[in-house]
């Protein structure tokens, strides 16, 4: 793993292993995530890439049998230490899921949910501002500005996913984790999301899990290839796709298995 950036990494994982009960899902993964970058995790399904993603904002805590060892830091702070507050952590490290999961509330309330619970808006006007800004950044504003009170579940699949991105942005995170955000969408909606990821990367560190190698190649600057719970190779996306150093990576990229 080369370290091209002189600045400290936004997030770093060192020797991370995850197990569910006696089943080990992730073995000894070390990786760095930087600002202004999109990092893609690729690999065949069941390789542990989603599991690893969930350790980055401690969503694995919701599974009682999950156990995480190793060290993950955000701006140098250990996120699994007892000082780290999981509520703040998740506000700083947002997440977008595989299937769009807007709350059964209005579009406005979906976006306002995070600022409300975290107390980020001092007034109604400030909240309106956050909602508008988030929806704009998610590229959804023009489509929904006249029907902010409609239910979020009434939107199309692609719009729902952008709403979920807006919802994540509204909390003003530093890192956004995306777990196969386009796997439930049609190609046109997928293209829109990819475009959006491209625009967002200037503001946030983005980590995206995908099983679609073309997508990884299109949107990311760094790529990590996972296989059987291990990180096989991690590097600049261009290098991974053109000159993989590992035989397994090459086999996967050329479609030998997956």
């Amino acid at each position: 793993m080369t370290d091209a950036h002189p600045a400290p990494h936004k997030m770093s994982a060192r020797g991370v292993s995850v197990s569910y009960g006696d089943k080990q899902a992730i073995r000894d993964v070390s990786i760095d995530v930087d600002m202004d970058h999109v990092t893609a995790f690729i690999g065949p399904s069941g390789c542990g890439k989603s599991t690893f993603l969930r350790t980055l904002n401690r969503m694995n805590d919701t599974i009682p049998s999950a156990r995480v060892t190793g060290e993950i830091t955000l701006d140098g702070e250990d996120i699994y230490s007892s000082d780290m507050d999981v509520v703040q952590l998740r506000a700083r490290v947002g997440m977008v899921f595989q299937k769009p999961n807007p709350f059964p509330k209005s579009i406005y309330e979906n976006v306002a949910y995070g600022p409300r619970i975290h107390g980020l808006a001092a007034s109604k006007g400030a909240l309106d501002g956050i909602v508008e800004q988030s929806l704009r950044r998610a590229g959804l504003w023009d489509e929904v500005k006249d029907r902010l009170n409609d239910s979020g579940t009434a939107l199309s699949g692609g719009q729902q996913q952008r709403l979920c991105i807006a919802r994540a942005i509204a909390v003003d995170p530093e890192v956004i984790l995306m777990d196969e955000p386009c796997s439930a969408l049609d190609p046109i909606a997928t293209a829109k999301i990819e475009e959006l990821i491209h625009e967002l990367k200037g503001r946030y560190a983005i980590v995206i899990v995908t099983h679609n190698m073309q997508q990884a190649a299109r949107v990311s600057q760094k790529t990590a290839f996972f296989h059987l719970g291990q990180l096989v190779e991690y590097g600049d996306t261009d290098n991974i796709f053109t000159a993989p150093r590992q035989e397994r990576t090459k086999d996967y990229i050329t479609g030998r298995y997956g």
Partner: protein
Amino acid sequence: MNKPAPEAAPARAPTDWKTEAMQKRIRRRYARERRFKLFGMLAVILSAAFLAFLLFTMVTNGWRGFTRTEIALPLDFPAMAMKIDPAQLSTPGANLALAGAELEDKVSNAALAAYGAQSVPLLSDAAWLKVREALKADPSLLHQKKLLWVPASTQVEQGLRGNDAAAAPLAKKLYDAGKLHTGFNAGFFSESDSTDPVAVGIWGAFKGSLLTMAVTFLIAFPIGVLSAIYLEEYAPKNRWTDLIEVSINNLAAVPSIIFGLLGLAVFLGSWSLFGMRVGPLLPRSAALVGGVTLALMIMPVIVIASRNAIKGVPPSIRDAALGIGASRIQVVFHHVLPLAMPGILTGTIIGMARALGETAPLLLIGMRAFIVTPPGGFTDPATVLPVQIFLWSDEVSRGFVEKTSAAILVLLVFLLAMNGLAIYLRNKFETRW
């Protein structure tokens, strides 16, 4: 991340999570989280505590209902000069003969002779009955003097237990003199209702419950299972089937007292049909009418449980049987029904437990009579355990409080056993495919 936003909305300053205000806010949120969790825990604990308190109250009130205080009564039978032939005592007419010989008066005279006149009665109403049984068991007693332990009056019993201030000194004196002892009250399980709390028992009501449950089962089980089979396996999709389904679902939610009104109007009422007076169809106050009424009440429970059980049998089993040429009836009765039986039985037991604990509809169809002799058959006037509890609960005397709670404990043990059996069955036979 601090770049100005290019869009129309005003850009916002990045969130600083480390500020004092923010930290305070988060502490407040966590406090709320803990409070919320605590409320949940409290709700569970208080609900369980209520159950525990209820059981505790019943046990502390009721355990003494299983005991009975007896008083030593010296009886000088030869001196009583009863006009009775010892040979008569082993005939069926013994009871009548002993009553004719004024045994009851002689027994109370014996108490008077032994203890003198007291401000409270010493003997239970059932005391002379115990003497009667002793005489019937051993006719030679007629020529002997004998000390018998007979049930003491409820005042003495409660005085001894510290619940009756008026009788307490006397009871204490008798107890210290060794004239009183308290033992297991076998009569509680073999006697029936009485006006004297010392003499009451649950056998009559229990037998009534048994007879009623038998009727309920014999009607509700076959009808429930057969309709479940029809609805699940054969019913065509049409308005009639919908009507049946709607009826069953609604019947399951109809208040039980409405079934009492139904029983009263349909089974016990009479009306004219083509000029002939018809009805009442069933005898009032009997286990038969109670059983039929409860059967209608729990039938929907059995139907719904049976349908779920039948639904749980995989279609592959039906296909396999149909594939080797079985008829649709044979498929159901040879293959589906046996596999669904544990689920059906579980539902039936739960329904029967509900019927066993039910009171309200039975009050309306006359099963609240004062029943001194246990019912001999399905058409005799009868009462059931919950109704007996209800009747006793109206009595204010302390003795009846004990008996009511004791009867409740017996009822709860039965219901617990039935529900436990249902849970056991459900766990044991949980889907094997």
